[in-house]
């Protein structure tokens, strides 16, 4: 749990209050002007309702330049950020031809496969030439090539499940598969901080959804006991089935799932476990096989394993792995398999090649080095940040580390100051996090060198002092004196 310092909470509330008040004031004047020149469509309700886009118009637009910064190179350890300018108070941003070379602390390029790779890229290009960029058909019709077959075998083997199914987009994997697995009369128990795709999939399934406190197995047990004993609401019939959905690494918290405890509880209460490894597959574990490997959970105990290829593998798409029967059933009826264009062949090849590199099947130890590197890098960076006095969330070994900012004004301040010093960080605010808990998020990659990390730490420390986000007292240590010397 994140505990906000009392004073910070107060000032954050005050800031949002002020923003809200000014926003309302401006809306009031806008209304008068609109009324003056009423030329809008008569007889139609406005397409964006006032309150719906109030946040965008009055809060988000002010700091729009901190999000969606275009880049003009591969999202490697260093990348080119395109500079933008605005002539209308940030309402619209225009691209310039100027670029600045920045250190990339934002992309999910955990293993460094985003940039061109000596093993993967030539193979991807070869597949592109052989299979074209698309099959223009769904998997069940004419969109299954030999490459797709190979990919599914490769993935099943990698994650340690009998069979797997691959779709062209990670988001769709969750939102199209949950409705197939469960429907009315079923119960989904979902972690309170699960990704939006799971939330949408659960909503789309028509099953009842209950939430348990983020990463708290004891609360999960409480919810399970309560729900099983009470049955369905109103009718009190027993639930048809219960699926518990958790993520391997929570992308906004950087926390590892307490999987062993959760799996034990689910086993005890006969609930099915659905594990979303979007951020953990490839990034953690000794051979990159995700949280199951890292935390010592037998993959046979996890009924459905889901993950994406956009992060560690530097490609696109998602997978579902499970028993042979489950996959067979999904292939028979899952809309993502029946209606959506199949994975682009070069992207499929990229995944296959990346997995081969990770497993060392390319004949080198590059994969093992990458995995060792990301672990070292993450743990080094996290401990350094903590020593400096930042409030860093997340667990050791996780390559995702959020730094708490809280106040809305600190979001653009932190992001812009870092960018000025050629470090590109991601700041996350309201739609993705609770209103009060704005944060900056750092994603470490295996392609970062030690010098890169030291440089990043130096910049972040300086900006942190400037913006005032070192909420804890700094811990004097040898490491930090080194950093100061470097300055």
């Amino acid at each position, binding site marked *: 749990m994140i505990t906000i310092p009392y004073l910070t909470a107060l000032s954050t509330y005050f800031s949002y209050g002020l923003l809200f008040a000014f926003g309302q004031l401006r809306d009031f004047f806008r209304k008068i002007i609109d009324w003056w020149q009423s030329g809008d469509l008569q007889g139609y309700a406005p397409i964006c309702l006032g309150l719906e886009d109030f946040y965008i118009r009055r809060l988000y637009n002010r700091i729009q330049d901190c999000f*969606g910064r275009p880049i003009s190179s591969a999202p490697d350890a260093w990348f080119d950020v395109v500079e933008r300018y605005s002539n209308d108070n940030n309402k619209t941003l225009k691209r310039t031809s100027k670029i600045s070379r920045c250190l990339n602390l934002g992309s999910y390029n955990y293993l460094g496969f985003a940039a*061109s790779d000596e093993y993967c890229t030539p193979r991807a290009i070869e597949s*592109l030439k052989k299979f074209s960029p698309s099959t223009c058909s769904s998997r069940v019709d*004419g969109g299954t090539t030999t490459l797709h077959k190979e990919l599914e075998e490769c993935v099943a083997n990698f994650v340690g499940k009998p069979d797997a199914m691959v779709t062209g987009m990670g988001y769709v994997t969750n939102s*199209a598969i949950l409705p197939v697995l469960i429907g009315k009369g079923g119960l989904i128990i979902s972690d309170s901080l699960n990704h939006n795709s799971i939330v*949408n999939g659960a909503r*789309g399934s028509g099953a009842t959804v209950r939430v348990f406190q983020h990463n708290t197995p004891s609360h999960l047990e409480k919810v399970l006991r309560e729900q099983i004993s009470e049955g369905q609401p109103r009718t009190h019939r027993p639930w048809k089935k219960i699926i518990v959905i958790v993520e391997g690494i929570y992308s906004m918290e950087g926390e590892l799932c307490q999987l062993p405890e959760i799996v034990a509880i689910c086993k005890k209460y006969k609930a099915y476990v659905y594990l979303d490894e979007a951020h953990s597959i490839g990034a953690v574990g000794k051979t990159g096989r995700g949280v199951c490997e890292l935390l010592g959970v037998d993959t046979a105990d996890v009924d459905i394993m889901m993950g994406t290829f956009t992060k560690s593998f530097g490609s696109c798409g998602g997978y579902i792995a499970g028993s042979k029967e489950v996959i067979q059933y999904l292939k028979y009826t899952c809309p993502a398999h029946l209606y959506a264009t199949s994975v682009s062949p070069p992207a499929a090849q990229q995944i296959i090649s990346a997995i081969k590199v990770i497993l060392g099947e390319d004949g080198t130890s590059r994969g093992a080095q990458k995995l060792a590197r990301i672990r070292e890098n993450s743990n080094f960076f996290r401990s350094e940040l903590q020593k400096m006095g930042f409030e860093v969330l997340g667990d050791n070994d996780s390559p995702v580390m959020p730094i708490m900012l809280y106040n809305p004004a600190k979001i653009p301040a932190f992001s812009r100051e870092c960018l000025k010093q050629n470090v590109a960080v991601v700041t996350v605010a309201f739609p993705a996090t609770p209103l009060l808990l704005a944060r900056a998020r750092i994603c470490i990659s295996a392609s970062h060198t030690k010098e890169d990390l030291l440089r990043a730490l130096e910049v972040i420390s300086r900006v942190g002092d400037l913006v005032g986000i070192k909420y804890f007292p700094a811990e004097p240590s040898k490491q930090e004196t080194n950093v100061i010397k470097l300055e």
Partner: protein
Amino acid sequence: MASSFLNIVNATLDWVTATLDAPSSRAIVFGVPIGGHLFVEVLLFLVIVFLLSQKSYKPPKRPLTEKEIDELCEEWVPESLIPPITEEMQYEPPVLESAAGPHAIINGKEVVNFAAANYLGLIGHEKLLESCTSALEKYGVGSCGPRGFYGTIDVHLDCEARIAKFLGTPDSIVYSYGLSTMFSAIPAFCKKGDIIVVDEGVHWGIQNGLYLSRSTIVYFKHNDMESLRNTLEKITLKNQRAKKLRRYIVVEAVYQNSGQIAPLDEIVKLKEKYRFRVVLDESNSFGVLGKAGRGLTEFCGVPVEKIDIITAAMGHALATEGGFCTGSARVTDHQRLSSSGYVFSASLPPYLASGAITAIDVLEENPDLITKLKKNIAVLWKGLSGILGLSLASNPESPIVFLRLEKSTGSVKSDLQLLEDISDRLLKEYSIFVVTSKRSTLDKCRLPVGIRLFVSAAHLESDLLKASESLKRVADSVLKDHI
């Protein structure tokens, strides 16, 4: 005995009269003598207080004990995760050993491919491959981030601008997957309480979007303008509040489930009369219909501004992947923070965006692709008309040629089995690859199933003739017993 009783009665009466005559009871409140009221009311009040002070009867509350909960948990038996596997679930699609162009290789044999929506024949196009290769070399394969967090690559912005320029709209927004375009865009604009009038034949992506929006959904008969008019009329008349709600008509340009084309000019007339907004899915018409391939708006001669939201998948005519949504600047801007499939998903791999730009360039430079496609559709139509037992259900201009059984067997399952037999034999005996319209159990579309042929501009005339010839022969022998 009697006198004592009388005495008591008299005494009581005296007491009552005394009380009633007491100065307090003779009081006059606001000009009304209250008589003995006060006395009676005080008595009543006392009775009420007495009753209230009594404990009411409550059944004793006995929450489940831990032991009982344990037993219940022990007793509970969940259903299995999936239903038992039946034979039809074991279907394995043919595996292509080459690109999915008009001529593909399956099991080492060259087949004519009618299963890919490669309308313009851009699969394997030299220029497309070139632009994808150079983008792959420059940007790598994936973008490794959502659009908000450094997943925006300059080709995405170029692609958005290119699509908008091609269609003549102010702006557009690119999604990373065709299927997610619709089911993210609809919930961004429709919320609980809004009214959506929708064709009953729309594909699953739209159905899911409608469900997620939680709006009030009213279906009208497939491609039936009379039914649409009645529905709109009913809604506007019945619902006085309708004026304050957002109202939409959702249609597909070319229906994936039937090959029908929506009469957009009539829909626009109705929309303007009843003041609805139109959401149009151009997945199968973008790059196909209209003189320059701008889709249904061009085909029906409707100015593109009249359609509020246009979505399309790029995995068809453009032969890349992903999808886009276009409309006014307000419409596209709103989606950049409110559309879940855009905000919460990694962006389109840059090489596919660059491929889409090139595909549009190719289309603009070669308008004869569209004429060629039109000609091919006409040839196939001519060849397929008059097949025994099968009838053409699609529009003669649609690139999806849809054949359905003239006489249904009565169940979708056995219909599909018959059609499946035809397509199997076509592939095995004649090397013609066609597919049936398979449906997910989640799909609510109830239109009849059929065989779908996706015509491409790259099909040779001989391919089309061969396909119709063999289809005729196979249908004859398979449907012989059925008719």
